[in-house]
């Protein structure tokens, strides 16, 4: 990747819609930047805000939680609604903790929306390149031991 700063984006993608879309992007040979690290989960309703915090603390510059379109696409009926309730609140908390809004996205991506997936990744990578790394900032916690 050369000397240019490359953000790392952790993606929690649901098995039934979003992960299938990511797969489809691959089999359709769509191109997108290699900055994403995708973690498959069964449902966006299984993604706990704690996982997102852990990802940021461990060096992610951005996080995407991706699931099936509300209201009714969720394989488990309302997991995506649970995700909507959780991350709508959680975004407020992230903002208060100094995490810029560009660093976290809740996205609805159906199994056929490979193109949307590519757009989302492109857009986020561009935004994060402008913001720069989050890592430098989190390291403040270890100041005392140094």
């Amino acid at each position: 990747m050369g000397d240019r700063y490359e953000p790392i984006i952790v993606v929690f993608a649901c098995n039934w819609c979003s992960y299938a879309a990511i797969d489809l992007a691959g089999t359709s040979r769509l191109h997108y930047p290699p900055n994403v690290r995708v973690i498959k989960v069964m449902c966006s309703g299984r993604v706990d805000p704690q996982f997102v915090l852990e990802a940021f603390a461990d060096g992610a510059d951005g996080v995407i939680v991706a699931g099936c379109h509300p209201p009714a696409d969720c394989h488990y009926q309302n997991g995506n609604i649970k995700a909507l309730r959780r991350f709508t609140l959680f975004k407020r908390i992230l903002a208060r903790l100094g995490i810029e809004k560009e660093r976290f996205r809740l996205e609805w991506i159906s199994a056929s929306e490979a193109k949307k997936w590519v757009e989302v990744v492109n857009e986020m990578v561009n935004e994060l390149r402008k913001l720069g790394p989050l890592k430098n900032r989190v390291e403040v916690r270890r100041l005392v031991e140094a």
Partner: protein
Amino acid sequence: MSKPKVAWYWCASCGGCEESFVDLAEKLLDVFGAVDIVFCPVAMDYKKEDVENMPDKSITVSFINGGVRLEEHLEMVKLLRRKSDIVVAYGACSSWGGIPGLANLYNVKEIIDRKYKEVPTVVNLNNITPREETEVDIDGYRVKLSLPRVLDRLYPLDQVIDVDYYIPGCPPTSEVFWNALNILLSGELPPKGSILGAGSKSLCDTCPLNETKPDKLELTELKRIANTIPKLDECLLAQGYICLGPVTRGGCGALCINANMPCTGCFGPLDGIIDYGGKAASYIASIISYDELEELEKVYDSIPDWVGILYKYYLAASKLGGRIRRKKEVVKDG
């Protein structure tokens, strides 16, 4: 055989933790009978040198309460760590930062400006703020006075030294402290990192209102005790008050619930929770019964300070430790 030696030190503390010790009342006599208190700045006049002169590991247990906010605290807890066999983080501040840990939302300059210049009740015509060093004339002599440096943020004890055990609460009840003390003196020590004196059940599990808590909660609004009074005999969460009993360790005796106050989380996270505020947000949000963004935002708007509520005692120990600051801010503080 000589009695076990106990030290008790306070860092950034409100005095409540010391109070919980005094609240042992007549049981204090048993404590004094069972242990020798060798260092306790709140009640006894010993100096740092006295601790320095003790042999390493000669103190059986040091109880340390309050968060680490000053260079002085840092020095003292490192010294006590060296001199002690067992170090116990006592209370919410020492365990996770506690209420003073909420100051990690601001940098040192913002805190000092707020306290010494901006608070509406402060009149500070000459804009005097504390400095680490200052010179004054006393009886014709030029004297240099100094204060310990304020650290860039508040640190829970285990972010600066190795901690063996935790005693939860803000403050821990004297019952919890008594249980913990008995465990420590029994000689049968639990695994390192254990929470002493409280169980592993959630507060809800032990709450007198638990029978009125429905299996499936669906809230259409959130209420605040600032402007409404809860009913006495119904689960506070079911009434719409943010009660953190479902994610908080029990063992406090449901003191707040019995006083008609929702749980604010001072006994800290249940086992398995890696970020208390994150978990609390997850739980509370999932029981808001709306499915549309707009309606959800409206409910969330009704609570002015989410971080203050969900991270009341835990912000400094959270995954991010407080507000993430830009690099140049850090240099300025450091």
